[in-house]
C-alpha cells in the first residue's frame, strides 16, 4: 500500500501576546491509501491543530507534512476537511451550499454539476436541493456537509468530530452512512473524535495522543472478527470491549 499522508517531525506552537502554546511536539506517522484512521486524545491536546496542519490551512512551526509525496504548502483540492458543525450558509440553498467549494476553486462546470447531482440522488437529498438549510434536520445537514466536502473530489478526508453535534441515534445512523460512503468512494479518512466507541467501530487504526503538547502515546490496529464489517455490526464483535477498555485506560480520563 502507498503512503498518502506522511507527518514528519511536525511541531506546532501558537504565538499570542499572552504567551506561547506548544500544541504539537515532534509528531511522526503515516496514513496508507484507503485507510480509515481515528485520532483520539484528551480535550485540548491539539487534534484540531493536527488536522489543520494536514489540510494546509496552518503551517507547522517545524517539520513537514507530505501528501502523495509532495510537501503541503497550502490548502489543496486533494484534501477535504469536514468541520465539527455543518456551517451551512443560511442564505444559500442546499445545491448552492454544496457547490461552494467548486465555486471557490473555479471548477463549477457542467461535469462537476452533474457529479454533484448524482451524489445528491445517491444519498437521498435530491428533492431537497432547492431547500434552505433551516428546513433540514440535523442529520440531513450533516450529510449535506459531507457531500459539500466530496464535491471537490478529494482523495483524503479530514473529519473533525463531525458527529458530535448530533443526538445519539442520529449519530450512529449518520456515522454508519458516512462510513459506507467513504468506503464506496474509496477515500482515505482521518477522523478526530471524543467517542471511543465510534473510533473503534469505524477505524482500521487508532492513534492515541498524549495531553498537550500532543505526542503519540500509542497506535492500535483494529481487527474485529465480524462477517460484514460496518460500524454498527462492529460494535457487536467480541473484541470491541477489549479494545475499548485498553484505549480507555490509556486515555487516562479522571472523572
Amino acid at each position: 500500500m502507498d503512503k498518502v499522508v506522511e507527518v514528519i517531525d511536525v511541531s506546532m506552537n501558537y504565538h499570542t501576546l499572552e504567551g506561547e502554546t506548544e500544541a504539537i511536539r515532534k509528531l511522526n506517522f503515516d496514513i496508507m491509501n484507503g485507510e480509515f484512521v481515528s485520532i483520539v486524545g484528551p480535550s485540548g491536546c491539539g487534534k484540531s491543530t493536527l488536522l489543520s496542519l494536514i489540510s494546509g490551512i496552518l503551517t507547522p512551526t517545524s517539520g513537514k507534512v507530505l501528501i502523495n509525496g509532495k510537501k503541503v504548502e497550502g490548502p489543496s483540492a486533494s484534501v477535504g476537511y469536514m468541520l465539527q458543525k455543518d456551517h451551512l450558509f443560511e442564505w444559500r440553498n442546499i445545491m448552492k451550499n454544496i457547490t461552494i467549494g467548486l465555486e471557490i476553486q473555479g471548477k463549477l462546470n457542467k461535469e462537476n454539476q452533474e457529479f454533484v447531482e448524482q451524489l445528491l440522488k445517491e444519498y437521498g437529498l435530491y428533492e431537497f436541493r432547492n431547500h434552505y438549510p433551516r428546513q433540514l434536520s440535523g442529520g440531513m445537514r450533516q450529510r449535506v456537509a459531507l457531500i459539500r466536502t466530496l464535491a471537490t473530489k478529494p482523495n483524503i478526508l479530514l473529519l473533525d468530530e463531525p458527529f458530535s453535534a448530533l443526538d445519539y441515534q442520529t449519530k450512529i445512523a449518520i456515522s454508519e452512512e458516512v462510513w459506507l460512503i467513504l468506503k464506496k468512494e474509496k477515500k482515505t479518512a482521518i477522523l478526530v473524535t471524543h467517542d471511543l466507541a465510534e473510533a473503534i467501530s469505524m477505524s482500521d487504526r487508532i492513534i492515541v495522543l498524549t495531553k498537550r503538547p500532543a505526542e503519540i502515546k500509542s497506535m492500535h490496529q483494529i481487527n474485529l472478527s465480524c462477517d460484514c464489517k460496518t460500524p454498527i455490526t462492529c460494535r457487536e464483535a467480541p473484541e470491541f470491549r477489549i479494545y475499548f477498555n485498553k484505549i480507555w485506560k490509556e486515555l487516562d480520563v479522571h472523572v
Partner: protein
Amino acid sequence: MYDDINTNISEEYKKYLKSHRRKKSAIRISRIILLIFIFVLWEIAAQKEWIDPFIMSQPSRILETLITMGKDGSLFIHTGVTVYETIVGFVIGTILGTLIAIALWWSDFLASVLDPYLVVLNALPKTALGPIILVWIGGTTKSIIVMALLFSIVVTIINVYTSFRSCDEDKIKLLKTFGANKKQILRKVVLPSGITSIISTLKINVGLSLVGVIVGEFLVSKAGLGYLIIYGGQVFKMDLVMTSVIILAIVAAVLYLSVLWIEKRVLKMM
C-alpha cells in the same frame, strides 16, 4: 415537505387569530383617534383663544397654508429639494461607509490606526462642522449633501465593520479549507452574513441623513423644508413653520417606511 403549514386549523387556533386581529385593529383605530383628537383640541383651543394662534398656529391655518403652497407649487419644490438631498446623502453615505468598512476589514493595520479617529468622529456633534463645510464648499446643495453624508457615514462605518468582524470564524475556516482567497472570503461569507446589519444601518442612516439635510438647510438657506422653517421663524410666520414641520414628519415617515420595504425585499431575496 418540512415547510408546509398545517392547513386544517383547529377552532381554538381560529379564535386565537381572531382575537389577535381584533386587538391589532383596536390599536390602529386608537392611533387615528388620538391624532384627530390632538388636532381638534388644537383647533378649538385656538378658536376659543385659550392659546395665541399667532404663536401656536392652528390646524385650519396650516391647511390653508398647505393649499396655497400646493397651488403655487412651492410645497412640491421645497419637499422635493429636501427629499432629493436626503436620498443622495443617504445613498452616498451608505455606499462610501460600506466601502470604507470593507477596507478596514481588509487591513487590520488600517483599522487599528483609524480606530481612535472613528471613535472621536462618532462622538463629535456633526453640527459643529456645518460652518466649516459652508466655508469650504460654499452655500450650495453640495454642502447640504455633504452634511447629510457626514451625519450617516461614521455610524455606517462602525456598524458595518463591527458586523464584518463578528462573522463566524469557522465559516471563514470552511472557505479556507477549499483554498479561498481574501476576496472570495469577503464575497462569499463576510458580505452576505453582514447584509442584515448593513440593512438595519440603513434604517438609522435615513433618519440621520435627514437631520444632516435640515441642519444644512438651516445654514445655507435657499430652498427645502429646513429653509422654510428657518425663514418662517425669522419673519414670525408660525403657520409656515408648523406646516413645514408637519410635512417634514410625513417625509421622515415615508422615507423610513421605504427603507423598511427595501429591507423586506432584500431579506426575502436571500
